[in-house]
């Protein structure tokens, strides 16, 4: 049995790329078997090429009601941690979607935007402590290492938050235009 493993970095604002990539892999005969390392290491198993719809979703709490409705509708669910799941469904014809309206997508996005924002607060404290470090000690090797880790992290967080904000803004606009 042939197996493949890939590392892919993704975040809350670009998971559609992962969905598309997983679908391409399935089309070329590599079916997702497992996801580890905070959802970033994907292992595949060789099989027949298949048409599979992959949908990444977020739930504050994965309830039995949620898994029940999805599995009754033919979805297989892989929990990847912190409320994120990968749902998959084999299909012929039209690609099935987990969400078929903008309103529910916006509701879901609003939920993880808040969760995301709450993780930003401790990060801001880290950044503040960082600045204080510099004021007290001036430049040294520890500070240099610290800032080279913390600064890109802060920038990445801000970037993801901006992306989430604009995605939700577009969704709101689409909902308004329909009415």
């Amino acid at each position, binding site marked *: 049995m042939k197996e493949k493993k890939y590392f892919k970095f993704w975040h809350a604002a670009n998971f559609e790329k992962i969905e598309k990539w997983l679908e391409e892999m399935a089309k070329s005969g590599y079916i997702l078997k497992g996801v580890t390392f905070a959802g970033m290491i994907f292992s595949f198993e060789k099989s027949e090429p298949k048409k599979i719809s992959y*949908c990444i*979703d977020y739930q504050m709490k994965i309830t*039995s*009601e*949620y898994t*029940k*409705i*999805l599995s*009754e*509708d033919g*979805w297989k669910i892989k929990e990847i941690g912190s409320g994120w799941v990968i*749902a998959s469904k084999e299909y012929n014809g039209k690609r*099935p*979607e*987990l*969400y*078929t*309206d903008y*309103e*529910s997508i*916006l*509701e*879901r996005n609003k939920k993880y935007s808040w969760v995301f924002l709450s993780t930003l607060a401790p990060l801001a404290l880290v950044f503040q402590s960082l600045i204080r470090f510099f004021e007290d000690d001036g430049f040294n090797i520890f500070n240099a290492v610290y800032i080279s880790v913390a600064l890109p992290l802060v920038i990445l967080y801000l970037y993801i938050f901006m992306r989430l904000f604009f995605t939700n803004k577009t969704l*709101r606009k689409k*909902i*308004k235009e*329909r*009415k």
Partner: protein
Amino acid sequence: MYSDISRRDIKGGKMKNPEKDYIPMSETAYYILLALTEECHGYGIIQKVEAITSGRLRIGAGTIYGTLSKFEKDGLINPVGEEDRKKMYKISETGKTILKSEYKRICELAENGKEIPEV
């Protein structure tokens, strides 16, 4: 639409003025409420809506779950027990009021549409 919902409109989980937030309603929301004029569970709603629209509208499972949670929170529907470990729901009085006014609005749309001149 969402921008005019303020925290003050929501009291104890139930909205003060649900009509303001739910009318006009999305097609999905309308059909979910309509399906719940009889007791039904999540997946049952998908099947029911697909049947009454002759297969045109197949609501996604994520959409059903999200909408049911929101409707329950806003008091449009009530949980009425379990069947085969599946949560059953039914439309509430508030839900009925909203569904009726939306129905009237849609009738008005259709009625006025009859005057489209033949081309």
